[in-house]
């Protein structure tokens, strides 16, 4: 049997995965909507259905959720009439209530000892058609001094079981993410990387920062995340040289210059390209010209490296080596920082100073 090309097999696997997703989509799960707001409006007490909550010491204990029989004590007629959509989102495929794992550590019993009024925390309840859970907002928790103090001390794990799985967006100091945090985060992360790891796993960072190994930029993977402040949105290719001129060190956080050289070589712009072409303006090799390469190199040497970084024997050495026609290429003050003795032990010096 003859094997098909690698890429064809890869595409076949990917197509199968896509197909599996479509199958799964057609089998979306049922969920139950108890219409909390409607019950409250009708004067049904919370405890009429949730009496066991008095004994619930941790979220997710099944006893705190009413059984179907409890619902049927009032809504028996709907079931007898076959009106399954009254409670089930998928009346064609009704299923039991699926208990999701809780993300918070919370002791209802302990809180109810202090105050039995549910509405102290549950300020707003979802109505029919809303799939929101009746979970109070975090500011409700922080309304108590004890929890406000824990928040101020960064003791997240007092309440949150696992912020790594369910990261939240801080909106207050010292790590507010409200403004353009993508742009602001580098110096903060440099000094507070451990705090970042409370919410972010390394793979969150690697989505953007593992540029050495990532196959494509995050904007290409998530074109639907239009509200994110990603750096390379839209036509970045056109503006990349301008961005680089504005702050090349920011580019070099993720990209080494050989990354640039790879793309420039594919575009036939580098000396080692298959069909090298000259992108430089006229006068590039004319001393005194407004576009003389020496002036450009002094102002932006990193851009030179993005096409000509082929080791010490690149075309700079040819002219600028000792005795070459290009003359001394070092910037002023070079000899103050680099003693002449360095020539004998730095291989880079030997390229021009044999």
């Amino acid at each position, binding site marked *: 049997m003859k094997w098909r*090309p690698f890429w*064809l*097999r*890869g*595409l076949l696997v*990917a197509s199968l995965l*896509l197909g599996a997703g479509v199958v799964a*989509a057609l089998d*979306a799960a049922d969920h139950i909507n108890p219409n909390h707001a409607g019950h409250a409006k009708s004067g049904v007490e919370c405890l009429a259905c949730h009496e066991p909550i008095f004994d619930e010491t941790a979220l997710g204990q099944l006893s705190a959720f009413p059984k179907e029989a409890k619902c049927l004590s009032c809504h028996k007629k709907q079931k007898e009439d076959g009106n399954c959509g009254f409670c089930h989102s998928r009346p064609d495929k009704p299923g039991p209530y699926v208990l999701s794992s809780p993300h918070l550590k919370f002791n209802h019993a302990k809180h109810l000892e202090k105050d039995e009024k549910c509405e102290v925390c549950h300020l707003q309840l979802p109505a029919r058609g809303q799939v*929101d859970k009746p979970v109070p907002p975090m500011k409700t928790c922080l309304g108590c001094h004890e929890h406000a103090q824990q928040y101020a*001390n960064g003791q997240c794990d007092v309440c949150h079981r696992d912020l790594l799985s369910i990261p939240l967006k801080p909106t*207050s100091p010292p790590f*507010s993410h*409200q*403004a*353009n945090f993508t742009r602001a985060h580098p*110096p903060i*992360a*440099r000094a*507070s990387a*451990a*705090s970042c790891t409370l919410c972010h796993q390394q*793979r969150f960072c*690697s989505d953007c920062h*593992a540029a*050495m*190994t*990532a*196959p*494509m*930029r995050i904007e*290409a*993977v*998530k*074109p*639907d995340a*239009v509200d994110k402040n990603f750096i390379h*949105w*839209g*036509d970045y290719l*056109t*503006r990349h040289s301008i961005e680089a001129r504005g702050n090349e*060190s920011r580019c070099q956080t*993720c990209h080494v*210059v050989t990354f640039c*050289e*790879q*793309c420039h070589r594919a*575009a036939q712009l580098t000396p080692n390209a298959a*069909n090298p*072409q*000259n*992108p430089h303006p006229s006068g590039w090799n004319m001393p005194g010209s407004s576009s003389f390469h020496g002036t450009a190199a002094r*102002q*932006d*040497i990193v851009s030179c490296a993005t096409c000509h*970084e082929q080791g010490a024997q690149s075309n700079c050495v040819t002219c600028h080596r000792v005795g070459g026609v290009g003359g001394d290429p*070092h910037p002023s003050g070079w000899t103050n920082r680099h003693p002449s003795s360095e020539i004998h032990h730095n*291989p880079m*010096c030997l390229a021009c100073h044999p």
Partner: protein
Amino acid sequence: MRGAAALALLLTLWAPVAIAQVTEASATTVLRLEPDWRTTDSRVGLWGTQYVGLSVRGIDIPGAVEDLRFQLSAWGTAATITSTPEQLLTGDFELLFMQGSLFQRHLTLTVGRQLISGGAARVLQLDGLNANVSIGKYFGISGYVGQPVVAPTVSGQGVNAYVAAPTVSRGVVPLGDFAFGGRAYWRPTYGTEIGVSFLEILNNNVIARQDLGVDAHVLILPNLSLTASSILSLVELRVADGQLGLSWHILPTLELFVNGMRTEPDLFLSRTSIFSVFAYTQRTAVGGGAFWQALPRLSFYGEYNQLWVDGGSGNEAILGVTYKLDRKSSVGLNGHLLYVPVNGYTELRAWVLESLTDRIKLSADLQWQLLENLFSYAGTSIPYNATKDSIVGTASVSWLIGCGWSAMLSGSIGTTPLNLTRYTVTARIGYNFTTFDAGTPR
């Protein structure tokens, strides 16, 4: 024999999953179709990429290791157009490490492919060992050693590619072949941390980089924080990167900030590069801005920086407005102006994110960009328009299928100075699986 080895590997990977407190697994398939203008005849290519991720944590081995963690993030790609035959099917690991805490969490060790973050390292992708020692309540020291990650010997995917070329095969190692460093820090409170760090990278036993870093994030008042960091090149005795910022939450809905930055980009070139001997380059930026949550649904963001680069000065301004239509739907308008001596651009981007249902979302964005000066590629074969502006529109529909599955279909089309026309079609399907406390499916 191969089958037995695969089974053994599967069991080895599955064993920690079975006893972990938290296990997260994901598989994402991305199919993308677009023309690649870098190939001289602008051929249309199809790329299929499979991402896999596994994060296992919370494994305790009594009396020995606490919170043992394992993290894997990898991908494989099949492409229809490449420069060389070996690029047809390729892949790599982004992360592959094991982490565990010893001595009541006073020592944390991480071994494998990882990201080293903080201090002079900035973000360094490293194959190696990282150790973090907590000393008392407020102090700590971390140290790492290993080999900086180099790109695999393959090309990436079209103009959206990240992966670099087979530079190693040409004898040029991108960053270096050996790195070590560390950071000592003082963290008296949550939100305040001061550190001193060191990084050295060697390339064939020659120093490619040797940096000393100082960094601080200080909560001066409950609503006022200071951030400062500096990286000094010990080889050149020049500051490679210095940043200072002050953020003031004057009101819960209003944040003001000022910042200053000075960098010397040539110092981020390897000291083993011939280009490190030609110039001292400098970039300076000073500016500030504000974020204002004017209404619960409406927010504004603005920032301005004055720039000084070699050859002149420039300006950068960023503006953003976001309006929430409801809890899951919003619209926004972003503007970005950047002018430096060589060129400049004005960019406007409008976007909308609309939840049709709880499971189906539509998103679209339209970006318009105007260059100050035309690009000049006369004499080259680059297919460029003789225009200064570009316009690119993207529309996507994403579907939260349920049971951990999600799907997305996206299309983008436009015209830009560097591409006569440009289009991309992207399909993505993902599966996420999470368990808490050994096997309770979410």
